[in-house]
């Protein structure tokens, strides 16, 4: 039952809270919580190839990550989702290559070069509209990005970093490979980023 609950909850890609699991599924078996979660995790791994990962040990939230290596070719994924993931990966790349943290002005200036304008419809046809909302709200809620305001600055400015989900679903190494592929260069071309990506976690 917990397996089904987790699979459905994962649709929105918002981390699943322990409290919800307890309230909706486990209920009176609270005492066996750990054992139940472990077993569910094992089923998810063995049957679906998914890993239940605890994202935040303090707030007890979980996400589902694929255990299988990224396969070439057809991902069972709708167009809208593909476009969103494309945009996300580009943003993650920018952040990493620029030293793991960028100012919002820098990011949006970069996106403008890609013909992506906040608030202008049609930049990403599959999305139909608010790119700013997608980036600053949806991606943040899903823990792909972390946006923090810079203190004591007016008008307010923000710092963009990788979110906890991003660190679990991909890696600096993978993102560097993506950049290398796009630019037709070898990852070693960017020495300091390469060293950072290859360093043991």
């Amino acid at each position, binding site marked *: 039952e917990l397996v089904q609950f987790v699979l459905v909850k994962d649709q929105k890609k918002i981390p699943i809270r322990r409290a919800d699991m307890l309230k909706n599924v486990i209920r009176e078996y609270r005492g066996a919580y750990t054992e139940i979660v472990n077993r569910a995790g094992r089923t998810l791994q063995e049957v679906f190839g998914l890993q239940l990962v605890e994202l935040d040990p303090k707030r007890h939230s979980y996400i589902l990550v694929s255990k299988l290596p990224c396969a070439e070719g057809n991902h069972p994924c709708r167009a809208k989702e593909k*476009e969103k*993931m*494309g945009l996300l*990966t580009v943003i993650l790349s*920018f952040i990493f290559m620029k030293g793991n943290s960028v100012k919002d002005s820098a990011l949006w200036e970069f996106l403008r070069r*890609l013909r992506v304008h906040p608030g202008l419809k049609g930049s990403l*046809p599959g999305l139909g509209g608010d790119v700013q909302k997608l980036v600053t709200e949806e991606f943040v809620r899903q823990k792909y990005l972390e946006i923090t305001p810079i203190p004591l600055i007016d008008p307010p400015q923000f710092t963009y970093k990788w979110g906890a989900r991003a660190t679990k679903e*991909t890696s600096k190494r993978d993102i560097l490979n993506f950049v290398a592929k796009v630019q037709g260069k070898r990852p070693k071309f960017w020495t300091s980023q390469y060293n950072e990506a290859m360093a043991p976690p």
Partner: protein
Amino acid sequence: ENREEMLNSKSNRLTETLEEANKLFDEVSRPREAALDAQFLVLASNLGKEKANELHSEMTAFDTATFAEDLLTFMGINRTEVEENDSEPGGFLPSDAWLKVGEEALKYLRRAPTFHYMLGSFKSDPPVAKQRIERQKRASRGEAKRAMPAQLKKMEESHQETTEKEVERILGILQTLFENDPDTPISFFDFVIDPNSFSRTVENVFHVSFLIRDGLAEIKVDDYVLPIIEPTKSSRGRKNDRGPGARNQVVISLTEKKWK
């Protein structure tokens, strides 16, 4: 002369030399020496500039503009002549631009595929049934209950009708075959197997099983232990007396492999 040593990023030689020159300058009194000093300064600053450049190339900086351009190329931008009043100078992006990026990006992400229920079955019949039931729902509630059993019955019947018709048809074929040549046994497999369709074969077996159940046909085993089928005497003759007969259950397994 000690150029290489000075250029080495790890060495402070350049700084030390500058400091030495500084000290020396304090003691200068003649213009010639001042000119030398100036020359030295120029030399030192050039060296300094080179040193800075070398530092730069050791860690190639990531260039935003190039990355953006390369991305646009990856997306398949059509680069056109730059026109003055163009809203998008430099080219147009195709509509699947971000789709391309997304497909490549997915290779670098370990994202769990979103889970969705597969709705509906594969049978072709249900859609018809659904239409009828839906029409019922729109009718007034009071009548709904009474009318529904009638509708459902109709559907059931049509279901049965097709099966019955098929069964009768197959019986007809079997009888004709047998009449044409009563002495040659009809191989069961020859009778039911459709060389072009496995599913049709299964359907045939299904319909034949009704004939067996109703005692209209029987399956015997010939000398080679292969099943043969023939219409029973009662179906060949008159229709009364359809007793159950000897009831034997046989399980025949037929996988697609075997069928091939």
